[in-house]
């Protein structure tokens, strides 16, 4: 079983830096860490691979950044491919998917795992785009994956419960956050990770044209950015005997009941 996990390296959400007013994108010249959303996929892959399978990583990041990859390698992944190239600056979701698909294709995996969405961009479209580009079946919102011969059996999170779906391998599965408990890198894992191979490749190495990626290839444009509106004051319910009903009605409206 050969599993590839797509991992994004993002600015530390605890210290997120700022948006660049020029490019209207997040500044990424700070130290990057493993997106927590991806730690669930890494954990699932490690569990599925067990002792026989292999788990490798694919990431696209600026400035040859490997901080987040090292974390995932310390968790137990065996190797990584990093796509880092100045030409990739300004890439939109579809370009990212093209690049990742080309990097993934190098190892013809049985299973590709990605997070449902990243914690810094939140477009939530890259995994399905990769699947489409690679002509792989894709299952979204997985909360559990089991492998049975040439089939992936996936429990797919829905609003009311879960769907049980089956899909032939190779395929791409995107997993929701919080569904497994990602292991922490152990001391020995960290030391071992230092010696694990990280292959850095450029756009040209992947056989892509520099003019089709980055700002040049972007099919989308960020027109303007604004600060998020300040949170509105909450509603205070004074109890006049019917507070419980009003609270239930409020929660009902939010569809959380």
């Amino acid at each position: 079983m050969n599993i590839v996990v797509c991992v994004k390296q993002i600015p530390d959400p605890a210290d997120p830096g700022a948006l660049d007013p020029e490019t209207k994108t997040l500044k990424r010249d700070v130290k990057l860490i493993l997106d927590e959303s991806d730690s669930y996929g890494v954990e699932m892959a490690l569990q599925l691979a067990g002792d026989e399978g292999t788990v490798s990583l694919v990431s696209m990041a600026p400035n040859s950044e490997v901080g987040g990859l090292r974390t995932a390698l310390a968790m137990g992944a065996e190797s990584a491919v990093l796509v880092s190239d100045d030409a990739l600056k300004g890439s939109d979701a579809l370009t990212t998917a093209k690049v990742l698909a080309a990097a993934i294709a190098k190892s013809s995996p049985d299973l590709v795992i990605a997070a449902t969405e990243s914690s810094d961009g939140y477009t939530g479209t890259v995994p399905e785009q990769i699947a489409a580009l690679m002509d792989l079946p894709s299952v979204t919102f997985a909360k559990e994956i089991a492998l049975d011969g040439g089939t992936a059996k996936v429990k797919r999170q829905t609003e009311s419960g879960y769907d049980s779906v089956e899909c032939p391998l190779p395929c791409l599965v995107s997993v929701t956050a919080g569904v497994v408990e990602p292991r922490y890198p152990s001391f020995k894992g960290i030391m071992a990770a230092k010696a694990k191979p990280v292959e850095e490749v450029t756009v040209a190495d992947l056989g892509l044209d520099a003019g089709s990626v980055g700002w040049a290839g972007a099919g989308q444009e960020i027109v303007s950015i604004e600060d998020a509106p300040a949170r509105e004051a909450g509603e205070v319910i004074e109890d006049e005997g019917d507070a419980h009903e009003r609270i239930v009605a409020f929660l009902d409206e939010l569809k959380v009941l």
Partner: protein
Amino acid sequence: MDFSPNPDHEAIVEAVDAVCGRFDDSYWSTCDQNHEFPWEFYRRMADGGWVGIAIAAEYGGGGQGIAEAALVLNRVAASGAAMNGSTALHLTMFGLNPVVKFGNDQLKEAFLPRAATGELHVAFGVTEPDAGTDTSRIATRATEDGNGGWVINGRKIWTSKALESEVCLLLARTDGEPGSFDGLTLFLVDLDPQHCDIAAIPKVGRNAVASCEVAYDDLPVEGWRMVGDRGQGFRHILHGLNPERILLAAMACGIGEAALRRATTYATEREVFDRPIGANQAISHPLARAHMELHAAATMWRLAAWRYDNDMECGEHANTAKYLAAEASYFAADQAVQTHGGLGYATEYHVERYWREARLQRIAPVSQEMTLNYIAQRVLGLPRSY
């Protein structure tokens, strides 16, 4: 001089911070209030290989030095776990140092692999009711049983973690009389409940880890459990004192960092007379001073650790680090309480817990007075005063 960042150390910090992040202040406050050993935290740290980080790789440990062990304990304390978290670990991490340095192969093979996995809990029994600062007063006796083994009788106080520990590194008198350092011998004994009566001593703080009075009543000890040479026990433990001071300094700095973090947050948020209290220099200056003092102490323990790991003499540095860290940590914790006003005295804000725990380092494992005595005599060459 080279102060460039060390990627291994950064990775250790990141990973230990991640584990500690699961155990918040309320976890530690609950352990403290209920006098409960932090088992879940301990297991996580042991599973990650952090408890065994300084044990040699040949016994299954991480093979790192005192610098890395100190870094781990610093992060644990700085997470808000303070002494409750760091002293839950530190005796297994470094307590067996005399066994590593002077123990026979049987001792090493029997115990070091289990310390490396964190399975073995170790206590340290030196202090007695009449032998604290003056270790030569130790009266606990080990007498020969006639079959190559020993029988131990006596009373120790303040043996930390005795309730959880399977073994205790015990300094007992095999020869001579109280008042002499000769005749003290080190043993790694089992804390066998048939022969050891253990009672926790009610105390001000760090209540997740009990310190105990232990009465030894005819405790049998096999001959191979002697660590090093008969009559050399005091010299053997002297070897472990510098690393212990370095670890304690790193832990103390951690508490100070936790206290300062809470204090600065509160000083920014709390408004009195329509302005944040941190805008008053009477509040901000002491916090700035605490930051500088903690930083100076941290630089000192790093230097001491580096010297120890490079086989250089480090007595002056380890003692200086421990002294400065104990003062800086207590000052930071005290200022954190002050910054919080009345709420500083409430358990909810946790700074009172840091303050109670920071107080300890000025007394134990060695008092500030004795540290100053060391520097006065050994470094400045002044006459011994006692």
